[in-house]
């Protein structure tokens, strides 16, 4: 009875709050932010340059991690980019006919067509995003983060991914839904926040210099170490559970228990 009354009170408070906020803002509507603008805010594009050594990253963009295989790339210097289509959760790689056709065209100029299938877990930067509301397509061109992927010599393979949505979807969908769909294939890396070009990049990845370093030696965790020391050795945990003075850092294959901020147990 008491709980039912409490729920009714809470629901009424929520409705009143929503009404107050919405009514107080009536009559003050600016032009809506376009989907293109919202995606541009979410996905900062990489700035590429080139020197005598070839192409290089001048300013990193949002770091993305590939979640599914099938994206076909070509070297950065290639003028043609193959389009990989993503629709209803499925990756459609470019047809071999198309790939061979481009290869044939390049052979005429004395060049060989080289293609590269991106692997799950590969890190890439977006280099261009285009929204076509009429075609219900969002096209994203990506460039490999060679330092992240430890590609040597660097290739900066690039690819174009076209996310195709159902008819009329882009006109009415909010940016969150589109970003979630893009995230099924190209998820924003968990390496979280960093500053990029005067902007706060939420949930964005590390740049080239900040790319995850290969651990030369096994890391050791000792009893009595602080949370900072453990994070310095193991990186950010997947989950943190705070239970008053007891705190759990949960890694993929490890659970570290802190009591009053010091390592008390490792499992």
């Amino acid at each position: 009875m008491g709980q039912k009354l409490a729920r009714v009170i809470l629901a009424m408070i929520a409705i009143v709050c929503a009404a107050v906020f919405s009514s107080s803002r009536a009559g003050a509507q600016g032009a809506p932010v376009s989907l293109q603008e919202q995606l541009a805010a979410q996905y900062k594009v990489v700035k590429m340059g080139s020197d005598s050594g070839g192409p290089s990253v001048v300013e990193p963009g949002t770091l993305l991690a590939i979640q599914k295989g099938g994206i076909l790339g070509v070297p950065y210097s290639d003028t043609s980019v193959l389009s990989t289509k993503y629709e209803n959760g499925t990756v459609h790689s470019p047809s071999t006919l198309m790939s061979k056709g481009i290869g044939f065209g390049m052979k005429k100029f004395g060049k060989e067509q080289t293609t590269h299938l991106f692997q799950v877990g590969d890190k890439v930067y977006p280099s261009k995003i285009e929204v076509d509301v009429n075609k219900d397509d969002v096209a994203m061109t990506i460039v490999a983060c060679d330092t992240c992927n430890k590609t040597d010599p660097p290739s900066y393979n690039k690819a174009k991914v076209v996310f195709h949505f159902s008819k009329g979807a882009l006109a009415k969908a909010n940016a969150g839904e589109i970003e979630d769909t893009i995230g099924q294939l190209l998820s924003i890396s968990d390496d979280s926040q960093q500053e990029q070009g005067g902007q706060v990049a939420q949930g964005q990845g590390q740049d080239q210099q900040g790319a995850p370093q290969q651990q030369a030696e096994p890391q050791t965790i000792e009893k009595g170490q602080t949370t900072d020391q453990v994070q310095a050795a193991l990186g950010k945990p997947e989950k943190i559970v705070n239970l008053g003075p007891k705190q759990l850092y949960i890694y993929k294959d490890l659970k570290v228990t802190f009591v009053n901020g010091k390592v008390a147990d490792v499992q």
Partner: protein
Amino acid sequence: MQIQHNLHGGRTIVANHNGARVVTMGRHGGYVQRSYVTRGGHSYYSRTYYYHGAYRTGIYRGYYWGGRPYYGYYPAFYYHPVYYGWAYNPWPAPVYYGWGWGGAPWYGYYGGYFAPYPVYPSAAFWLTDYLIAANLQAAYAAQVEINGSLGPPASDQLLASMGAVPAAANSNAVALSPEVKRAIAEEVKAQLAAEQSQAAKAGSSAGQQSNASGNSNEVPPALDPARRTFVVANDLSVVAAGAECALTAGDVLTRLTDTPDADNNVNVSVSASKKTDCAAGKQVAVSVDDLQEMQNHFREQLASGMGELAKKQGKDGLPKAPDTGTVAGDVPEPPPDKTAAKTLEDQEKAADQTESEVKQEASSSGGS
């Protein structure tokens, strides 16, 4: 994913998924924050709050300071400057105003903590009571949600209050002293003055956008040296002199230090608190993120209060305001993210599962 339990039984879960920040604060509430737009070199984020079936949205400006991101409330619209001036400056004569809280459970429950002003010399004081009351209602609602219902408060907290009360006359006898309330009122006035200034820019042909310059290392508003008084917005667990204690919505803090320590905390003093929370006068460390959220909530409630005042001006003894019209800000209000409810629900379930696994592991390994 970070799961934080507080001393009153509540739980806050924070996680980042594909660039979205998801924060749940109880079984039925929370928000989803996403990148929204970049204007004038600044990043803006949309938040969709979901609580008991209702959505509301807000804009937050990104700050990046000391290697960390912060998100500060950013208005989607402004009132005309003259309305802020009316709210800031004294009214022609003090106003007696009846809030009608007499029969409200929260008001009786927190009667020993808070009493509204007997009269209002200006809108700033009316707004002060409005936002303190809003916080106490939220604190009461949060406790009811956790406990099902609340028993009677301690006898020294009881305040006989039945029917509509114009204002309590015993404001000196409550924990939230006139001095602390005055400090909150000063924050209200400072914020009104700041928004009046912004409103003037928003209404001018120059606009705000053209004035904005990319500032990649700007101090978040919570660390503005001019901002010292903070009203707690959500339940927090902090440590005072080695012992854990709670802060709940409506408690009042004074920030003592400007520079965060290695753990991103600043020192604050508890200026006023409820009986079961950290005692007034205690010094505690609070994270800058939490202070920023308090400041955000303060500004949201102030905007809500200004809206209420615009509706009520000229009625119930309140003087008539000159102009309550609005002008759009340079970043339009985002539409609600209708997937937020499911996102929040999924996060709650994931946290339940994580805690269940942790408990199972703990019990299977001898409770260590």
